[in-house]
């Protein structure tokens, strides 16, 4: 009898404390629930019950029901939290659910689930995401504007150039007038030369797009510098690959003119396994020592390697610079 009384006293004390704790938890603005190791709730406050009820339509019986319900809720793309799942309640408030494991004095583990009101934080993150989208759009508009300004500048330059050419034309006319009408005994050859040069400027249509052929350009420059160039094999037609090969030719030409004192360059182009190879030779004096890569060759190597290619240099018995590049989309034209 005494034992039963003692048991009831202890029970009353225990439940009294339990109810006091439960009551205190119910006053919290956050949702709180503790689950035992089997996943059953041992202590849950009113807010958590309300949230789970709204989420699932029934009372909380097991932690997996809560987890499954949260998994089914679509999550925000913008509010990022590593350990929180979100739930938007009907009243517009947004709740963040997190789980942690707590251990009591006796060593038993409990899973503590807390639901905190993150409505304001969520709204701010949505606003920030919206602002980021706007900034991204603005940035892309600015980038477009920057591209346009290049073309705009080009057009302005063309206009300015045309005006200057017209001014030159005007000067020619005035010079002619003074020569013929004014009886000026100026230099007739000079007059003709001025007219010839001015008219030469008009020999192509102004405004036509600048579509220079880089290989032709290179060959003309080489010829003007006293070097003939022979190309053997199909030269790549895609501009990026062609540019890189011409850069290599230009590097060789500089060395040929400045050091090797030759007057002819051979470029042999071959293709295999989706790669283009250009072997560049010349008739100049081969280097007396192995080549030490300086600024020009080293920056050429960097350019070629950035494009996925490679450069090899043979110094003797003849100098050969070989460039191998992945074949571009347009491939190569037959020569």
């Amino acid at each position, binding site marked *: 009898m005494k034992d039963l009384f003692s048991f009831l006293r202890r029970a009353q004390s225990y439940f009294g404390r339990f109810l006091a704790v439960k009551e205190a938890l119910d006053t919290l603005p956050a949702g709180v629930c503790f689950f035992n190791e089997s996943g059953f709730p041992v202590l849950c406050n009113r807010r958590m019950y309300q949230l789970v009820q709204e989420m699932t339509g029934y009372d909380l019986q097991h932690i997996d029901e809560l987890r499954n319900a949260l998994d089914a809720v679509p999550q925000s793309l913008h509010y990022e939290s590593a350990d929180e799942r979100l739930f938007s309640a009907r009243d517009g408030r947004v709740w963040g659910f997190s789980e942690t494991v707590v251990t009591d004095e006796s060593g038993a583990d409990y899973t503590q689930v807390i639901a905190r009101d993150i409505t304001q934080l969520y709204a701010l993150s949505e606003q920030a995401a919206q602002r980021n989208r706007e900034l991204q759009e603005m940035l892309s508009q*600015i980038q477009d504007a920057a591209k346009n300004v290049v073309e705009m500048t080009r057009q302005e330059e063309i206009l300015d150039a*045309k005006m200057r050419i017209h001014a030159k034309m005007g000067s020619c006319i005035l010079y002619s007038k003074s020569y013929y009408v004014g009886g000026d005994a100026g230099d007739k050859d000079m007059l003709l030369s001025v007219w010839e040069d001015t008219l030469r400027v008009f020999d192509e249509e102004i405004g036509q797009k600048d579509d*220079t052929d880089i290989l032709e350009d290179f060959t003309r420059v080489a010829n*003007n*510098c006293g070097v003939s160039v022979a190309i053997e094999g199909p030269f790549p037609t895609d501009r990026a690959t062609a540019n890189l090969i011409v850069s290599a030719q230009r590097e060789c030409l500089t060395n040929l003119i400045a050091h090797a004192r030759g007057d002819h360059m051979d470029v042999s182009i071959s293709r295999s396994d989706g790669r283009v190879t250009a072997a560049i030779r010349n008739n100049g004096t081969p280097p007396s020592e192995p080549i030490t890569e300086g*600024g020009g060759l080293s920056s050429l190597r960097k350019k070629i390697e950035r494009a996925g290619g490679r450069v090899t240099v043979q110094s003797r018995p003849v100098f050969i610079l070989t460039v191998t590049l992945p074949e571009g989309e347009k491939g190569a034209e037959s020569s």
Partner: protein
Amino acid sequence: MINVLVVDDERNIRKAFIADIAARPEKYRLVDAVSEASSAELYCAAGKADLIIMDINTANFDNGIDATARIKRRYPGVKIIVTTSYNDPYAMDHARRAGADSFWYKDASDVELLEVMDITAGGGSWYPENRPDVPLGLSRLSELTAAQLEVLYLLPQYFSNAAIAQQLHIAEGTVKTHIRDILTKTGCHSRAQLIALSIRSKLVIPGSEAEE
């Protein structure tokens, strides 16, 4: 006779320069008009050019300032006039550092190119006294302080305060203050409007950021 080489990626500009050169046939002879700065180095190696009219932005992202530095290092006797149609406030400084003998703004110069060619070919140097003072919203470029100009120059390239601060080795808050002051001076309502304005005013030469 002075052998002149023209380097400009725009065919019509090349034509205008050719016309300039043709106006003085007794003094200047055109060697060639090329679109890439690196071709100029070949002519220099071959000893074919005495004077180069060098654009900053040339074909295939070839930078005329870099080419000028290389040419002046290897062939110091070759005279170079750097030209541009941009209002980049630092272009003249870059050209001077690269060793260019003269500098000529294509659009905003009160001196004819031929005059600059004469001065340069005669062993002299001609640089405009001031940068082009372009309008900038309610203000003008000259009304910005040196620090504000630096920030405005980097704004279209780096966009954020943090990135600009890192470039200039100053505090992010200082960048913010400069931008606020520039906005007030120019009458722009936003950073984006300011960037658009600086682009429209051609303050930054495309591709020049790579050198910074």
